[in-house]
């Protein structure tokens, strides 16, 4: 099971210039706020997909849900 820190590190490693704040109560449901300059010019759907794609192997498995808020930095 990933920790909130691992989720944060992976988002920040995958998306250039990203800053993530990640919360989890149970290490299977996560909520994250991600700010990134890479989001500029993208729709929210595209912003969310960028983050979701980082966890495509785990979503539905070791990560049940990732609630997201994205912001352009």
């Amino acid at each position, binding site marked *: 099971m990933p920790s909130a820190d691992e989720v944060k590190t992976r988002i920040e490693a995958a998306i250039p210039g990203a800053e993530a704040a990640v919360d989890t109560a149970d290490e299977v449901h996560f909520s994250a706020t991600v700010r990134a300059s890479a989001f500029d010019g993208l729709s*929210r*759907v595209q912003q*969310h997909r960028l983050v979701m794609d980082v966890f495509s192997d785990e*979503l539905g498995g070791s990560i049940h849900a990732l609630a997201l808020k994205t912001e352009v930095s």
Partner: protein
Amino acid sequence: MSENQIRDAIAEAIADNDVILFMKGSPAAPACGFSARTVAMLEALETPFAAVDILPDPRIRQELSALSSWPTIPQLFHKGELVGGCDIITEMYESGELAEALGVQPPDDAPADAPAGADPAPAPLGIENRLN
């Protein structure tokens, strides 16, 4: 209907309707809290929208998500593009972006915070025929 026919019918519905919401239940009787909230936001903006209930056949959701690359329900489309699910729509409603994206003038009495939506009715008990 085959999976392909379902996917074509979904693509056609998205192409034919400027604003279309794929949801659990109907706008009058939403079967899930997220669908209910999304309906309530569209109604608060008084924007007309088409709605498709994905519950009657599990293949509708399967084909919709394959088409949109978006895993969850509801899904709101505007002019053929996925705008988002409930979280994105809530954020956009509260920032005013939703009205702007849909090209509507929010009514004066539209609440600033996203409306909560009706209590969802329980989903109808689905009996799936796995024999054919």
